[in-house]
């Protein structure tokens, strides 16, 4: 809309409102006889005006807690807020720049309700000092406790990566990997306990997986607050510790030691393996039945009585090492294990499909080589490179699936989840490349001009029509939904 049009529309609308309600439409129509677009706009606005009700009449409402968040650019002491990166029970976490040292930090602002209490402040200071002494590669370093006016901030190492929660949300984690992550967390806990710091709020949200695969546990010692002050903070949105991961003694407000972290660690390990919280749906948490890898280890961690748990976090690492992976103990329910159970017979055709497809793709490299010559020039080379790349990706991933299905059926679910999207992309690119190659062959008499597009059609039909069927058959019984 041009400024002139808008100006006209504006005047029209505002003048129309001066007319009696029942005459407005006729009034507008009369003045817009020359411009149908304008008429339509004005009519629509007028119609909206009549049904606008209380829209925007009530001024915006603010959740006071929202005002505790800082807008980017805010300067706190020597820190400059860049953006909000997380928000949890213990306040808001920002990515900030430490302007003195020129490095990025994670700046956690604690709820003002906390920072207002002198004794809590004192305790937090002590705790931050202790947390700063923990030295372990899997512990995010606490740099400083900053006190600015009425507000408390904890500056700590900024870890780029995703949370363990995000990884779990994509599905269960393969036992070997879960073991490695759990061992790293246990190591971090052991180092912290040695320094006299109890985490108290260990949960998948507080475990970060760096892009290089390393593990970092964050927020050490920040939840070291208990007692009546803490319970006063149960305003929606702020609470200390996360009940779902709290050991019974912690929930009851009793004295807590490192064994509360061991309890939380057991829950996290179980959640990594199954994709969900082990106590889910169970009213009675005193009787937990676990199956699958590390069931004995987890069961011992989840004991309601702290003295029945492992004594130290170091023991956890040893326990992980001695537990043979596929041993099933204390098994009663097996419903969660569906995803890990192979269904060999119905899976044959799926495996066959994967193997044959991989073979066909690989063979297509030969005609592609000849087509390269016929296309010629850099286009020919580009075409051939595209074919080889997609073939390599699609066949490698498919053969890996086939191999996993044959020899490590227990991990097929996980591998399938991870690779299916790559395979799908490679399939599409492969098909598209063949079609483009076929079109680019100048010589119409060349059989390849026909063969390449035909194979492309075959490939698309195979993965759009046939593969979903074999996949569904193969995975139906094991509870994996074909992800396409």
């Amino acid at each position: 809309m041009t400024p002139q049009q808008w100006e006209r529309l504006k005047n029209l609308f505002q003048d129309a409102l001066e007319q009696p309600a029942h005459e407005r439409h006729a009034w507008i129509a009369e003045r817009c006889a020359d411009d149908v677009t304008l008429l339509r706009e004005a009519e629509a606005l007028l119609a909206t005006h009549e049904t606008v009700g209380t829209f925007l009449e009530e001024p915006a409402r603010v959740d006071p807690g929202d005002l505790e968040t800082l807008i980017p650019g805010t300067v706190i002491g020597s820190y400059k807020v860049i953006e909000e990166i997380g928000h949890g029970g213990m306040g808001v976490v920002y990515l900030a720049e430490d302007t003195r040292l020129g490095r990025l930090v994670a700046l956690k602002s604690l709820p003002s309700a906390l920072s207002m209490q002198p004794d809590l402040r004192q305790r937090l200071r002590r705790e931050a000092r202790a947390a700063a002494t923990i030295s372990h590669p899997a512990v995010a370093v606490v740099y400083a406790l900053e006190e600015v006016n009425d507000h408390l901030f904890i500056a700590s190492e900024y870890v780029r990566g995703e949370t363990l929660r995000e990884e779990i949300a994509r599905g269960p984690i393969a036992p070997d990997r879960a073991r490695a992550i759990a061992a790293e967390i246990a190591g971090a806990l052991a180092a912290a306990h040695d320094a006299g710091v109890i985490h108290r709020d260990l949960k998948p949200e507080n475990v970060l997986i760096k892009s290089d695969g390393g593990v970092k546990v964050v927020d050490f010692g920040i939840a070291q607050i208990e007692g009546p002050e803490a319970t006063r903070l149960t305003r929606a949105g702020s609470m200390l510790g996360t009940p779902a991961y709290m050991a019974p003694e912690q929930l009851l407000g009793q004295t807590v030691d490192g064994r509360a972290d061991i309890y939380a660690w057991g829950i996290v390990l179980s959640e990594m393996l199954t994709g969900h919280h082990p106590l889910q749906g169970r009213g009675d948490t005193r009787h937990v039945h676990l199956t699958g890898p590390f069931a004995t280890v987890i069961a011992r961690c989840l004991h309601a009585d702290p003295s029945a748990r492992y004594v130290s976090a170091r023991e956890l690492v040893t326990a992980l090492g001695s537990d043979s992976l596929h041993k099933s103990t204390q098994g009663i329910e097996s419903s969660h294990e569906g995803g890990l159970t192979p269904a060999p017979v119905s899976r044959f055709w799926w495996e066959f499909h994967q193997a044959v497809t991989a073979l066909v793709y690989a063979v297509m490299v030969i005609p592609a080589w000849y087509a390269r010559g016929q296309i010629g020039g850099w286009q020919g080379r580009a075409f051939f490179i595209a074919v080889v790349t997609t073939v390599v990706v699609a066949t490698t991933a498919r053969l890996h699936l086939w191999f996993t299905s044959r020899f490590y059926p227990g991990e097929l679910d996980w591998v399938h989840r991870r690779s299916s999207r790559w395979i799908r992309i490679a399939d599409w690119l492969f098909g598209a490349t063949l079609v483009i190659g076929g079109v680019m062959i100048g010589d119409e008499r060349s059989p390849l001009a026909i063969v390449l597009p035909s194979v492309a059609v075959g490939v698309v039909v195979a993965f759009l029509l046939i593969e979903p069927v074999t996949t569904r058959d193969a995975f139906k019984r094991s509870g994996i939904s074909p992800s396409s």
Partner: protein
Amino acid sequence: MPSDPVSELMPLVYDELRRIAASYVRGERPGQTIQATALVNEAFVRLAGERARHFNGRTHFLAIAALSMRQILVQRARARNAIKRGGGPQRVTLDDANAANVEAAFRRPEGAPGDIDVLALDEALSRLTALDAELARVVELRYFGGLTVEEVAEVMGTSPATVKRQWALARAWLKRALDDGVRS
């Protein structure tokens, strides 16, 4: 760097708003949510005594407060969305009743049904600014700042009648933009 007076005074106003909000958070006063109007007026009363000289009168202050409010609400809504999105499209992991309760306790109360989608409104308002900056300003002051028609007229240096006319058009335009936004 920030030579324009608004960006210099923003932190001051923002800080005061935060301080007042904190007293609500500490439970000194009841209420889950407060109207922007209340907050803005209170901030003015508090700041008027000590630092009023920074502002060219009350209207200047109100204008800045409305702008802060808009930024705060948009920022917050954006962060909330980002957190909800998590690691992309996925099912919720804690599908169990127990953990779901726990999760629910941690989630901030979402707005009541029929509430305004702040991000969509902000986006529509930016489009309106391109079309007619004055109109958008009226909305910012009225909705985000909680100013009355008379106050808006004072801030903008126009008459209440003009503000009323602008307000009617802006509301109809925005309502239409938001309803359309659902489709496109």
